[in-house]
Each structure stands twice: as C-alpha cells, then as structure tokens.
C-alpha cells in the first residue's frame, strides 16, 4: 500500500505548482462566468426558468467548458509526473525508498488526480456560490454529481498523461504526446467519421437521416463524449445532450460512457507502466 505515501507526497508537491494555480483560476473564471451568463440569459429572454431547469441549462453549458478545460488541466498536471522526476533525478530518491514502480505510477495518478480535483471542485464551488446568489433556485445534488463526474474526466486525462510520462524518456516527448492527444480528442476525432462517410460515399457528403452505428460508437470512444454520456446516465435531465435512442445497442447507451472512461483511465496508464517497469532509470 505504499502508493498512498507516494500519492500524498506528490499531491503536496504538485499542489504548490504555479501552473496549477493559473489553471484553477482559469477554471473558476469559466465556471463563474457561465453561471453568471445563464442567470442573465433568461432575464434577457423574459422567461425565467423553472426550478432545476436553470441548473440543468447551466450544466449543459458547463459541459462544453469542462470538456475543454478539464482535460487540459489533467494533461498539464500529469505529463511531467514521472518523466520530470526522471530528468531531474528526484526519481532516484523516490525509488531509493521502498516503493515498487507500480506503486509509484498509481501514487502519481492518485496524487495528481487529487490536484485536478482541487482545481475542479474549487471552480464548481465558486460556480455554486454564484448560482445561489444569482438564481432563484439551485439543484445542488445534480450540480454536485456533475462536479464528481468532472473530476473523473480529469482523472482520465491525468491517467493518459501519466501513462505518457511513465513510458517516455524525454519531458518534451511526453508534452508532445499530451498535446497531440488533446488536439486529437478536441479537434480531430469528431471529424473522422464524417471524413470516412465522405470517402465511402464517393467523395460526396451523404444525406443521412440517422448516424450509422459505427460512427456513433467511434464518437463515443472520445473521452470527452463519453463524459457527456456518463453525465446523462446519472442526471436524466441531461439526456437531451446526447443522441441516444431507446432501441440502441448497449454500447451506444448512456452508461457505456463509463466503460469508455474506464478504458482511457486504465489502458494508456497500463501501457506506460509496462514500459516504465521494463527499463533502466
């Protein structure tokens, strides 16, 4: 159980990083800004939203902000976790103590996820305070559930980044890997099915009434999309934000988002660990 010592040490260390403070501030601004905006919009439109609807609308909007900012925070917090210690030489202190390399990797994941959790929860807490002040009512349970799910999304990206950090020997390559992945999920992934459809349709955009199953599944494999599915599965009011139908196979249902998140939480980290475990420091 020595990963707990590593996690605790790592949390203490990383929480003092200036980059984290900057990202937390950024996230707080995002969250509070959206909260304010959504309190203003109904008044502008003249139809005050009923009870939970305002919170749900806020969450739908926060979803976009979180899906952009939280992965970024996770990757930034995680990419140096091991490769940075390897480059500086503090890894020799860490592994001179009785920690297995597996405990080091797990401890890093947990410690840095804790750091991301602080940033996310501070942001959500600030948004909650703003919502209390600005809204007539506020659905605290849904909001808290959503905050926890957002921490999970952060953990997924920390895990991916720690996986790179464990498997690569150079800090810059770990950074390129993390940035590359972010760009892939954020800007490239969702176009892939479109491009494939375009190509197989003889270089013409098909007129589809429904999205083919494989295209939906592919889209769902993006952890950011999986996060929306997972959120919709535990907060029913959010189900309009994902294109699921009652008759869809299980792998296109909302709870499958959790499976996808679990995949991204475990697989890159495991690959990075195996590579780390097999090499000389």
């Amino acid at each position, binding site marked *: 159980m020595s990963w707990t*010592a590593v996690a605790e*040490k790592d949390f*203490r260390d990383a929480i003092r*990083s200036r980059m984290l403070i900057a990202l937390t501030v950024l996230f707080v601004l995002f969250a509070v800004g959206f909260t304010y905006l959504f309190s203003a919009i109904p008044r502008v439109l003249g139809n005050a939203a009923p009870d939970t609807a305002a919170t749900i609308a806020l969450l739908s909007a926060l979803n976009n902000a979180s899906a952009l900012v939280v992965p970024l925070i996770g990757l930034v917090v995680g990419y140096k976790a091991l490769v940075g210690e390897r480059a*500086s*030489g503090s890894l020799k*202190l860490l*592994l001179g103590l*009785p*920690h297995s390399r597996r405990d080091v990797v797990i401890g890093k994941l947990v410690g840095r996820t804790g750091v991301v959790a602080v940033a996310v929860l501070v942001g959500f807490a600030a948004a909650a305070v703003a919502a209390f002040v600005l809204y007539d009512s506020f659905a605290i349970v849904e909001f808290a559930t959503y905050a926890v799910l957002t921490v999970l999304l952060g953990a997924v990206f920390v895990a991916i980044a720690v996986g790179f950090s464990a498997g690569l020997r150079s800090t810059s390559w770990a950074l390129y890997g993390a940035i590359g992945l972010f760009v892939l999920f954020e800007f490239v992934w969702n176009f892939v099915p479109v491009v494939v459809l375009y190509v197989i349709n003889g270089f013409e955009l098909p007129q589809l009434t429904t999205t083919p199953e494989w295209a939906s599944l592919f889209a769902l494999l993006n952890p950011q999309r999986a996060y929306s599915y997972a959120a919709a599965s535990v907060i029913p009011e959010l189900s309009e934000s994902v294109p699921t139908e009652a008759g869809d196979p299980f792998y296109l249902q909302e709870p499958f988002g959790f499976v996808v998140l679990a995949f991204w939480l475990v697989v890159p980290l495991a690959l990075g660990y195996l590579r780390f475990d097999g090499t000389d420091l």
Partner: protein
Amino acid sequence: MHRSADVAAIELDSVTKRYGDVVALRELDLHVQEGEIYGFLGPNGAGKSTTIDLLLDFARPTAGSARVLGHDARTESVRVRERTGVLPEGFHVYDRLSGRQHLAFAADSKDADDDPGRVAERVGIADALDRKAGGYSKGMAQRLVLGMALVGEPDLLILDEPSTGLDPNGAREMREIIRSERDRGATVFFSSHILGQVEAVCDRVGILRDGELVAEDTVEGLRDATVTEATLIVEVDRIPEGTLGAVCALGDVSAASADGTVITVSCQNASKTAVLSTIEDAGASIEDFTTRDASLEDLFVSYTSGAGPRDGTREAGADSGGARP
C-alpha cells in the same frame, strides 16, 4: 575483520551490464559481508554507479545475478529497499517541499516513526528543516538525503559518492555517521573516486576499473602491499626503443612509464638495482635517479589509471608516464 557468521549483505555473481555497445560491468563478482564498511573505489566511469543501480533495481543486469540482504535485487527489490538506506548519485530534491516534508516522506515510505527534527539534527540541517529544499545548497541537499537514508535504522546503507558537495568538515561528519551506523550493526557500502575518504573509514576496499574489480583487500592489506613497493624515477639521456618493454619484463616490476627522458618504475624494493642495470643495458645512460616508497595513493593511481600489480597486465606506453587523475 570478518564476522563469524559469513553472511553476505551484497553478493554479485558474474554480473555483466551493457549499455548498447558499451560494457559498463564485466562479469563482476562482489561480496560485501554484513556489518562491514566497504569502500568501493574507482575513477569516474569505472562502473561504480552502474553497480549501485543494479543493487537498487534502477537498472537490470545484462547477465549474472545480484542479491542484497539475501533478496534477489531484481525480483525482490522492494524487500531490499525496505531495509536499505540510499544516498544516490545525481539525485535532485523536491524543490517545493521542505526538508521536514522530505524526511516525513521517507519515514512514511519506510513505515518508520523517526522524528524529522532529530534526524535533521544528526545530519546538521536542523536550522533549514522548514525551508523549501529547492533553496538548499548542494551540501545541504546531500545532508538531507543522507538523513532520508538513515530513517528507519536500515540494515544496509548504500551511499554513492557521499562526500559530494561537502566541505572537509562535512566530510568528517559524514565519516562519523558512517562509523556509528556500522557500530549500530549496519553494513555500509559506499563509493568514491577519492582514496582519502575511503581509507580513513573502511574495513575493506574494492577497486573497480573499466567494469572489473582489480583489487580487493583491507586497507591494512593494501598498505602492506605498498610497503615493499617503491617508485623509482630515473632520468636518462634518451630512451632507446624497447627499454620499457625490457624493464616490464622483469619479474618484480608492476608498472613502468616514460615522460620525455624520465622513466617511472613501480617495483619491489629489492629489484631497484636490476631495473637500473636493465635500463643501462638497453643503451640509455642514467643521469640521475631517485626512489620513494609508494603511498596508498600511488597504488590507487596505478590500479585505476594504468597497470595494476595484481591483475598481471603491464603497461609500457611511452607517453602515459606519471599520469595523475
């Protein structure tokens, strides 16, 4: 010197370590007894840190096996490190954590309940305990990590170049700590490229060169070996070809080298006359000569830079004479 229970704290069996084409260790055998202070000597690049990396599973051997405190260094590394205090080489402290947090982390990791304050006092950083370690000098960082190594009363201390960054006073304190740890019952294995640090404190010394152990003895044993050795410095008018070869061929000569018209020969005291006449027979005329008894330092230098008396190789290089690291 040797404990009655002949238990090995460190046992390397024919260990080879290759990095690509570079052979860092060549079929190294090494046995360190429990309860002794073992000085691991050698010039930079001889393979000392590689050996330590293998003991701690920082690196894996290409061939051979290593056991530490009775455990396989590869498969039971955590067990090894539970009972070992480590001061690695080329480490870096956690800049954002205080000295106290470092020591608490070490105690936490080893399941020990050492008081950081007391450890800090012992290694001389009590004043800086609550400062961030990023602001420590090299010497203070060295002391901090020594403190981390001492946490939990380890059975074995592995110290890689422990005097790095320490002033003479710090180096003396380091030696005192090493002695008191040995007196407590711990085995101490430490590496150095400086003989002076080793001879003052070690029970036994091993000298590593190019990945091979070229000598291993007690400090007294090494010193005894040097008493009968002398260094002969001979000035000649010229050095005809084959002179050094002829000198080296003499039975009691361990090393010979030349620099300009000065020939330096390490040999048994009794063979000095034979050396001089061999030089004259080769066609050189002797203008002057001096002798001095070899110091341990000379011996170390001859082991680590040229031919070692015990490994049988002899050096007759015409321009490597008298090289000091």
